[in-house]
């Protein structure tokens, strides 16, 4: 039988400092994508780390340390987001595709410019994307951030937000469609 480790066996203060130094940057980035605010994000990361420290005994290496810590920072950031007064609640409908009474698409189609994968990763495109993603209404933006950028599964997102899986899927599709609409001028102009 394996005895559970005591705190001193598993994580010394020195190890914890290493964990903090090695993981703060990406955790701030995650929080910032959810909260859109640097200083709030640092608060979220700080609270997440104090919970991580207290839970380290419970980390049994079943998942990767980063995946395990990811959940903490997402939960803290969502908690802070729920407390924010200034949520973006612009209506999503004007950003969704339109159909006529026969169910045919009415939007003006355009041919996509040919783009390299490198271009999508360029600083310029990432700045545009960041700005446009932040324009999405929060209930949709959050689902897109967690599913498409943070790569959480539909079930994980549903649990984190207290939504049904079906609702997560509907919101994800609408978020992508709305983001496409916001990016259309750039795509038509060949910038994306």
């Amino acid at each position, binding site marked *: 039988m394996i005895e559970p480790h005591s705190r001193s066996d598993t994580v010394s*203060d020195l190890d*914890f*400092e290493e964990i*903090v*130094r090695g993981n*703060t*940057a*990406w955790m*701030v*980035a995650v929080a910032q*994508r959810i909260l859109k605010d640097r200083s709030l994000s*640092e608060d979220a*990361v*700080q609270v997440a*780390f*104090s919970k991580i*420290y207290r839970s380290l005994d419970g980390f049994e290496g079943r998942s990767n340390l980063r995946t395990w810590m990811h959940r903490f920072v997402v939960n803290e950031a969502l908690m802070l987001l729920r407390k924010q007064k200034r949520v973006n609640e612009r209506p999503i409908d004007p950003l969704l*595709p339109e*159909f*006529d009474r*026969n*169910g*045919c*698409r*009415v*939007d003006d*189609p*355009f*041919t*996509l410019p040919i*783009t390299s*994968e490198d271009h*999508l*990763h360029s600083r310029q*495109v*990432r700045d545009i*994307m*960041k700005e446009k*993603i932040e324009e999405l209404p929060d209930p949709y933006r959050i689902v*897109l951030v967690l599913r*498409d*950028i943070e*790569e959480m599964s539909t079930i994980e997102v549903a649990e984190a937000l207290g939504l049904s899986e079906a609702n997560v*899927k509907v919101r*994800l*599709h609408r978020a*992508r*469609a709305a*983001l*496409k609409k916001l*990016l*259309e001028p750039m*795509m038509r102009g060949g910038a*994306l």
Partner: protein
Amino acid sequence: MKKAAQTLKRRMHGVMFRFPGMITCNEFEDFILAYLEDELPPARKRVFELHLRVCRSCRLYLAAYKRTLAAAKATRKDYDELEASVPEDLIAAILAAKDS
């Protein structure tokens, strides 16, 4: 004139999309997410792909939708840039607060 031609084309599509085994653009829209995640049952997938072949609007739409998704996923990379900008006082605050 261009507008009238588009309206006519849409009306013809509207008729065609009611044929058996066909779906409308609106129904196509509802299947996109499941299609991209490969969650459509085979019969529905065939219907989706048939619409894609006959409907240029949806082809162009799906291409832009996929580009949007790829560009959104590419924003993940900004972790690396933040690496250099983590202030030492944040690290110190985290270490000081861990027992609180």
